[in-house]
């Protein structure tokens, strides 16, 4: 029986067990270390008025100037937007939109005059914007092959299954495969300035430097063949269904042709929300003191190739200057000002509460 082989224990819990080998001392007490006895030195913060109230006031006082700075910066950004979807009969692009068909060999052109009331200084960025276009739909987002776009020859000839059904036509692989590439934006937008004499001056648009550096130089690479001719490298592949030209004819500049074409790269960086804008061209600032885009009349000429009316989407062209906080977005400024004021007001309220009721925390009234 276990009870009979047990001997008395003393006060501290040491248990002496007498066994065949003589008396051995077996100590059952856990070690008296700070870790095992839960006595580790620790910082024990509590919410006192001395920490909370100054924190609220300081946050309020910091946020309001930041908010004002953001709001003023955003207001100083100049932005101009033209919606050229052409769903209204009075719109210049109405005919192009109405007569759109997939088999058009000749692209439809529409001309939209507009006026800039203020001169635009420094670099001006030209964007195209789409609305109600869900580039963030799950099937759409997955429909690409990053290995193929990185120049992998095996993926070029055999695109991944994710690209289905845009992976091959008649057993020939599509380059670039997938729904994202297939739906690439292909309107051409050009700007003309109508100077006071009446002549139409074309505005030079830079088409490089619009994509992320990591995208252009790391993520997207042209496949390397035995010769440097891109047409030969892409031999055996076909262009995506909805493209007019194959991928190796996207631009005459060899640094901007093939998969590393910057318009293509910008399109392939899928947007997070259904209303988005993508950088199309940059209007570089001039070396002279003259503004980049002076005040006056302008013309936008659109090669209308991209159909959006079937899903009730909208297309727009945006001209915008840039600041350290990006494009024109007054939200952050207003939010900071609001939160700062609310915080300051809350600090005052808490101060009043603490002043009136703060001594309830007195230790004298700890009772049952």
């Amino acid at each position, binding site marked *: 029986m276990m*009870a009979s082989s047990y001997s008395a224990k003393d006060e501290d819990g040491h248990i002496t067990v007498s066994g065949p080998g003589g008396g051995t001392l077996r100590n059952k007490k856990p070690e008296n270390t700070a870790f095992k006895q839960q006595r580790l*030195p620790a910082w024990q913060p509590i919410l006192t008025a001395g920490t909370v109230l100054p924190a609220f006031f300081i946050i309020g006082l910091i946020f309001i100037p930041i908010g004002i700075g953001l709001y003023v910066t955003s207001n100083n950004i100049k932005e101009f937007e033209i919606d050229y979807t052409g769903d209204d009969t009075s719109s210049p692009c109405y005919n192009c939109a109405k007569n759109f068909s997939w088999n058009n060999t000749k692209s439809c052109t529409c001309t939209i005059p507009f006026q800039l009331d203020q001169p635009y200084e420094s670099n001006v960025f030209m964007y195209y914007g789409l609305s109600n276009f869900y580039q*963030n739909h799950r099937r759409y987002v997955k429909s690409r092959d990053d*290995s193929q776009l990185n120049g992998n020859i095996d993926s070029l000839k055999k695109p991944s299954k994710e690209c289905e059904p845009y992976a091959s036509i008649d057993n020939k692989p599509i380059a670039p495969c997938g729904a994202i590439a297939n739906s690439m934006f292909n309107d051409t937008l050009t700007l003309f300035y109508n100077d006071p004499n009446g002549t139409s001056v074309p505005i030079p648009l830079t088409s490089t430097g619009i994509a*992320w*550096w990591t995208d252009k130089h790391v993520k997207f690479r042209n496949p390397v063949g035995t010769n440097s001719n891109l047409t030969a490298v892409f031999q055996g592949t076909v262009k995506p269904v909805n493209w007019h030209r194959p991928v190796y004819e996207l631009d005459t500049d060899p640094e901007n042709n093939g998969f590393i074409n910057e318009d293509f790269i910008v399109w392939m960086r899928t947007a*997070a929300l259904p209303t988005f804008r993508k950088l199309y061209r940059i209007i570089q600032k001039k070396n002279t003191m003259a503004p980049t885009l002076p005040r006056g009349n302008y013309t936008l000429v659109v090669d209308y190739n991209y159909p959006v009316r079937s899903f009730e989407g909208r297309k727009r062209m945006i001209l915008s200057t840039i600041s350290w906080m990006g494009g024109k977005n007054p939200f952050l400024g207003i939010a900071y000002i609001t939160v700062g004021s609310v915080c300051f007001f809350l600090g005052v309220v808490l101060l009043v*509460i603490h002043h009136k*009721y703060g001594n309830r925390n007195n230790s004298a009234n700890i009772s049952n």
Partner: protein
Amino acid sequence: MCQTVICCRVTPLQKAQVVQLVKKYKQAVTLAIGDGANDVSMIKVAHIGVGISGQEGMQAVLSSDFSFAQFRYLQRLLLVHGRWSYIRMCKFLGYFFYKNFTFTLVQFWYAFFCGFSAQTVYEDWFITFYNMVYTALPVLGMCLFDQDVNDRWSLYHPQLYAPGQKNQYFNKKAFVNCVMHSCYSSLILFFIPWASMHDTVRDDGKEIADYQSFALLAQTCLLIVVYTQLCLDTYYWTAVNHFFVWGSMVAYFSITLTMCSNGMFYMFTSSFPFIGTTRNSLNQPNVWLTIFLTFLLCILPVVAFRFIFIQLRPTINDKVRYKMRTEELPVPAPRRLRRRHSTRSGYAFSHSQGYGDLVTSRKFLMKRSTKRAPLFTQTDSSIFQNQPQHYRTIAEEAEESQGHSP
């Protein structure tokens, strides 16, 4: 009013029956402590069985949930360790539900903006690592080491034990509060980045409102808010806690930077499509301003609420914690003289009225009837009428009246 009942010369079966009686009719949590083989049945029946290892052998210890060497350690078990354990469990549950509901509800709000196509607003690797790596160790640290009041103060103020008995820290109301808090946090965590990134660009005109940058922004905001909530919930910051929390934050940034690096992309192209995202979005001031705004909007209401409750309705915990900062540690109670071991050491005691009457009502001595009416429909019962009872022993009562029915 009878608050304590002493049963003596009871058989082991009767001991178990006393405990069973209280369990059944009072819906209370019962604890039984004993050191002999005759206490084993009582220990097994109670919710918490405590065995004392000692003179009478190891039988009680083997069948118990907790065991120690002396009866007086029961005070420490309940008032210090039991209380800490309850607080830790409740904090853990509340925090765990909060962080997972927030994480999931943000995806739910994004569904309205992605055509309900089940596109995740976070990166796939983040979803994998969120519960396994980023938020695993900090929670573990809080649950292992947290103490609101240290052990000497816990023994000095036994009233601190009352919230555990009343189940105040995690009940339906606390769960609903947690869900509402998660809803609010998730709304902030989605809609502030949404409004801030809507139709925006970087400071060099290039894209920032793309899916990958938005995912990175949303997940960074979420993690910072969730870590700060943990920091507000942790009351006892040991070195281990510091290491776990700050280490997890550093781990998040290093893992994310690694996954967006060129090397990983070249090695596993299709698994790491987020190449370059950290470099191109985390160097933007408006991204960090958004993160800061989200973080403060989620945390400041919590701080304000807690401060208001401490000022207007301080709980006993708040008072003792405040006292702990200002006053000296109380001297530990002097050790009493060592007594001889008594031959009997099984005890039963209750903490409120009504138990004594229950035990002395001889219920457990009656044969089980097939139909058992609930206690409180018997209006002629003295328990129901809550009238004072006289002190009596069961043995005397059995002699007094034959066939006495409660």
